[in-house]
């Protein structure tokens, strides 16, 4: 009974965002004949790949009624760790030690670092009962500071052609970042729909006390969810770094807001328990299409921010209207 109800709301929410997306595309396509081309389609998908990765992690967290403000900084730190290890390795002159890293090793190190940072968020939230907003706000600053320390404020560039494949390469006619984002989405969809972990995530967000009473180890679930989000932020960071062939110390500033926007536009409730990965992907596509369309139409940069905010509002209001019926 409950399950059926949940599925209905999700489908309806996704339908609303789909209508919003189609309307948006139609408007831009009428105004610019360059919009509906194959090239531009890949462009938009490649550009949103990073936001999709982060937003998927954010969705899992928001489903548990949490939030993660640190994703942008964690993205920057993990991208920089990967780039630094790849380029310089670890040198310890005192012990006459040098450890070089292969691409795979550096990637793993970056992703593990992301998972650990996420785990730390979860640890602070579950162990000390710090609200997620505050705990991850602290991590936002800490991770940014660590990025500055690690890079000394300077970009780490020229990482080699093999590494740049991750961000700029093609595989079977589809850009590599789109493959990565697509796999992330499939795995996350599977987790939320088919596994016990997925059901626990919805249960915690729906009613935490009820979840505790029914024997779910909510701390463990939260630790897992925050670690996943951290690891996905790292994946995003690696893609950004690879695309630019450079780890920028200020990369990812403000990305948490884009991710939250994607989650909200996609119909996931910030109070937890309701929403879906598919909806979030739709939200990310809407934001990506908007960014792309506004530039294609050469809209003044002053107006772009106003338009973006307005579209987010409209999408959410349409979504609300749909739910009331």
């Amino acid at each position: 009974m409950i399950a059926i109800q949940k599925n209905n709301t999700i489908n309806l929410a996704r339908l609303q965002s789909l209508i919003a997306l189609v309307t948006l595309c139609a408007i831009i396509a009428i105004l610019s004949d360059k919009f509906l081309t194959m090239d531009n389609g890949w462009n938009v998908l490649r550009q949103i790949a990073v936001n999709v990765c982060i937003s998927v992690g954010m969705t899992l967290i928001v489903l548990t009624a949490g939030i993660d403000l640190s994703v942008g900084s964690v993205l920057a730190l993990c991208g920089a760790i990967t780039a630094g290890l790849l380029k310089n390795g670890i040198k310890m002159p005192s012990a006459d030690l040098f450890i070089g890293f292969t691409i795979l090793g550096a990637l793993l190190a970056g992703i593990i670092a992301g998972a650990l940072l996420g785990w730390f968020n979860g640890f602070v939230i579950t162990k000390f009962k710090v609200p997620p907003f505050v705990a991850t706000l602290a991590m936002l600053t800490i991770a940014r500071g660590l990025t500055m320390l690690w890079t000394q404020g300077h970009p780490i560039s020229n990482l080699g052609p093999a590494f740049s494949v991750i961000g700029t390469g093609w595989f079977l006619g589809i850009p590599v970042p789109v493959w990565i984002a697509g796999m992330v989405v499939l795995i996350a969809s599977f987790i939320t729909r088919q596994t016990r972990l997925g059901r626990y995530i919805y249960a915690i967000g729906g009613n935490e006390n009820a979840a505790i009473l029914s024997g779910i180890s909510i701390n463990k679930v939260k630790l897992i969810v925050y670690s996943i989000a951290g690891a996905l932020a790292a994946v995003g960071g690696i893609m950004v770094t690879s695309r630019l062939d450079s780890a920028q110390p200020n990369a990812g500033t403000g990305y948490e807001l884009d991710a939250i926007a994607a989650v909200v536009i996609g119909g996931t409730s910030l109070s937890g328990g309701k929403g879906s990965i598919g909806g979030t992907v739709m939200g990310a596509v809407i934001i990506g299409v908007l960014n792309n369309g506004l530039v294609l139409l050469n809209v003044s940069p002053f107006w772009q921010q106003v338009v973006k905010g307005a579209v987010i509002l409209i999408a959410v209001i349409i979504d609300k209207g749909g739910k009331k019926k």
Partner: protein
Amino acid sequence: MKRVLPLYVKIVLLGLLVVFTQCKQKKTASGKKKMAVVVSTLNNPWFVFLAETAAARATALGYDAKIFDSQNNTATEGDHFENIIVAGFDAILFNSTDANGSVANVLKAKAAGIPVFCMDREINATNAATSQILSDSYSGAVAIGMSFTQQLNKKGNYVELLGLVGDNNTWARSKGFHSVTDNYPGLKMVARQSADFDRNKAMEVMESILQAHPDIDAVFCGNDGMAMGAYQALVAAGKASKVKVYGFDGAEDVITAIKENKVAGTGMQFPKVMAETAAKFADEYIKGRRNFPQKIPVAVELVTPKNINEYIAYGKK
């Protein structure tokens, strides 16, 4: 649920507090004079270089130097100035967040008897700072505009990528550039977008612009980070060899790219010269000198593949 912190956390916090207070006592006890380096942001390698060079020179001259990051926020900058005054620093090497907004902060320091030496960015007051050593962004952009016009033979379609639209430097550079290029009707600006001085944003914006305008001849970018982002978008689109990219700053990546003939030119600023002059002036002030020129403009030099051998990142060889 207990809301009180566990005992061991309290002990650690207390321990930290003791360590910090001890550090503070040590510093005042050492008797060294102190210089503060207040910089608009440390989120951009150029400013990191400016701040670090200033601090390094101050240390070399025998001072304790401390860097303060204003995070592009004039209010944060104001807090730093208040703390600096209370902590009794002897001079401030200053890179302002805002030409008008920062004046009040500088006047506060002046009233407290602490001399302020501006680096790179001007403040709109002649009676506040002891001396201002300034980068001439406008003239530098004029020089780029001239090279740009010549390279394109006075005709072609181009794109402009602006920095943060609320930033003075964005517009000084844009206006200097347009003061030249707007005189040639053959030069047509087909798109003008902001990429926030950010490499990733520049790449994304450029990718979209290339969809709307596949046949452009050149790009003018408000800083070097955006120039690299635009260049990468052009490489991905297979157009890097046809489109001329111009930047501004003289940062490491672009200097390398100019050497390899990938980027057509940039405006070299001299953060090292500005930072070291400011530190030298502050040292002389503390030792008694009082007559300083109010403004010292430091020229921005045009760097192209022709003269690249004279330059390294952030300065001349």
